[in-house]
């Protein structure tokens, strides 16, 4: 007896279509696999490879492989592998939380400006321009040095100087979408402004913002690395940039101590960029030919 499949072909949701598109993008999938590996290392690495990364374990600046230390030791004789594993958690946490702060400020400013227009838009866009004039790294260096070099402060400082790009994208999307018929229909149907912004327009404005947010994580990791390379970071926390900064005096004797953490940053940010590009292709099919 044969069974005939008589269920009607289901229309695919935009989500599954985007997923399918992403899955077919080899570079993006590779990026995602690398990224997930790094996240897993950051999460369970300290358990699999226990020990305080700040313990001095062997002769300073001994080359990779010696005495079983895979990546050698740093200028104080600390295990580089342990520092790198603990650094992964710091770099990723700061990257993701700074991107989150950026997106929250950016969406709020951009959505209000794009939705309300008029003087609200004028004021908010002037504010955005003002923040674009500030020299980002210098300004965040000053914030961190004045208000304390803790990870939350670094996160906040990065978010505070990075949001204008997100605000501009959000505003542009809101200005486009608010003129569309379904928004007019919802408005005519008596939907309140708050609901219009958050439930009607925002979900449709999200795709380019999601892509920007993904790329922001990469930029924030680089930003944090720059700050900690310059020494503007919590000295009691190992981060990749800080490992490079503290070992930079010794590049003549031990170049591995700066190259290896740099490779870690490079691979992580590259993986994020590949995922971001993949998301861009999947979520904004119209922009695909960049």
């Amino acid at each position, binding site marked *: 007896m044969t069974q005939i499949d008589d269920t009607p072909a289901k229309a695919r949701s935009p989500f599954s279509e985007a997923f399918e598109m992403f899955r077919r993008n080899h570079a993006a999938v590779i990026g995602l696999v690398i990224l997930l590996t790094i996240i897993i290392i950051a999460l369970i690495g300290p358990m699999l490879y226990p020990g305080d990364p700040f313990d001095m374990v062997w002769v300073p600046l001994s080359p990779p492989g010696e005495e079983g230390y895979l990546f050698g030791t740093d200028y104080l004789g600390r295990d580089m592998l342990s520092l790198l594993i603990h650094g992964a958690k710091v770099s990723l946490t700061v990257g993701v939380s700074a991107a989150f702060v950026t997106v929250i400020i950016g969406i709020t400013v951009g959505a209000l400006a794009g939705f309300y227009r008029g003087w609200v838009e004028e004021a908010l866009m002037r504010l955005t321009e003002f923040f674009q004039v500030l020299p*980002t790294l210098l300004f965040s260096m000053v914030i961190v040095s004045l208000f304390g070099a803790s990870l939350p402060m670094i996160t906040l400082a990065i978010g505070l100087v990075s949001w204008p790009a997100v605000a501009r994208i959000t505003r542009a999307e809101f200005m486009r979408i608010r003129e569309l018929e379904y928004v007019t229909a919802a408005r005519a149907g008596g939907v309140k402004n708050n609901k219009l912004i958050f439930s009607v327009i925002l979900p449709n404005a999200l795709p380019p913002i999601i892509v920007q947010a993904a790329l922001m994580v990469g930029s924030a990791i680089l930003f944090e690395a*720059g700050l900690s390379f310059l020494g503007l970071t919590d000295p009691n926390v190992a981060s990749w940039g800080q490992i490079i900064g503290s070992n930079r005096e010794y590049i003549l004797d031990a170049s591995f101590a700066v*190259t290896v953490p740099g490779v870690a940053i490079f691979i992580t940010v590259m993986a994020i960029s590949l995922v971001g590009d993949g998301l861009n292709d999947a979520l904004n099919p119209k922009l695909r030919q960049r």
Partner: protein
Amino acid sequence: MHIVMTLLKRLIYAAILLTAVLVLNFSMMHFAPGDVADTIAASMGGADAETMAQIRVEYGLDQPFFVQLFAYIGRVLSFDLGYSYFYNTPVTELIFERLPATLLLAITAQVLAVVVGVLLGVFSARHPNGIANYFVTIFALFGYAAPVFWTGILLLIGFSLKIPLFPVAGMSDVTVQGGFFVKALDIAHHMVLPVLTLSSIFLALYSRLSRAAMLEVLGSDYIRTAKAKGLSNREVTLKHALKNALPPVVTLAGLQFSAVISGAVLVESVFSWPGLGQLALTSILARDTPTILGILFFSALVVIIGNLVTDLVMRLIDPRVRGHA
């Protein structure tokens, strides 16, 4: 007349922006935890309560916030950025001493990035399956993902320590004697690695954008017409397509002034380049308030002037912009 009015409006707006920058920076420094008088006393090697009180009066620190703020804005208007406690020198003098080095580094790196970026972009757009395309893709990935200070250190290890082609640090060699030309050559020699490092961030950006812009322009009708007229590929690319692909690159380059300053701070630190970035780092670590405020003000000024100049250049190369002032 029209352009004069537009320019005037822009200038007034720029002045308002700068004042806002001053107010924000000053307030931030003022309300930050810690006492400026302590820093001054520390730089003098300590002070008793009486001297501390004297310092407060001398530097106007005993005045209410708004009095201090307006006094500061007034001084800035008369080109006085105050006196550095740390260097014991007027801040303007410090900045003007360091500014040329930073401008030299930043402008050379930007010009290099734009020229090479556009060439790479144009070339890879004309040969979509050629090797230039791979270069652009690899550059783009590297430029985006590699921390600029790390790129600098890699170049330093490679071309200064392992293969000693370029100097390790600084902007000039004091032992080099000779005329202007010899000195200029010495500076150029010192500049190679820092400039390459700084331009690496932007090269990727410009080559990607100019490739995209060229691909779009090369597919348009008027290019087909130009080809149909019998113009050679080279003529079509240079005279017609490039002219239309350039404006987006110039606009983007104009928006990068803030990023260039950020990059310069890191590159200067790697190569001990005696510029504003180095001064900024030292004064931030020493909490030298007048110098920090002065540098923040000057950086904002550079960004604003950069945006104005980009605007003017856009008007020159893109007639479409003139209509929408």
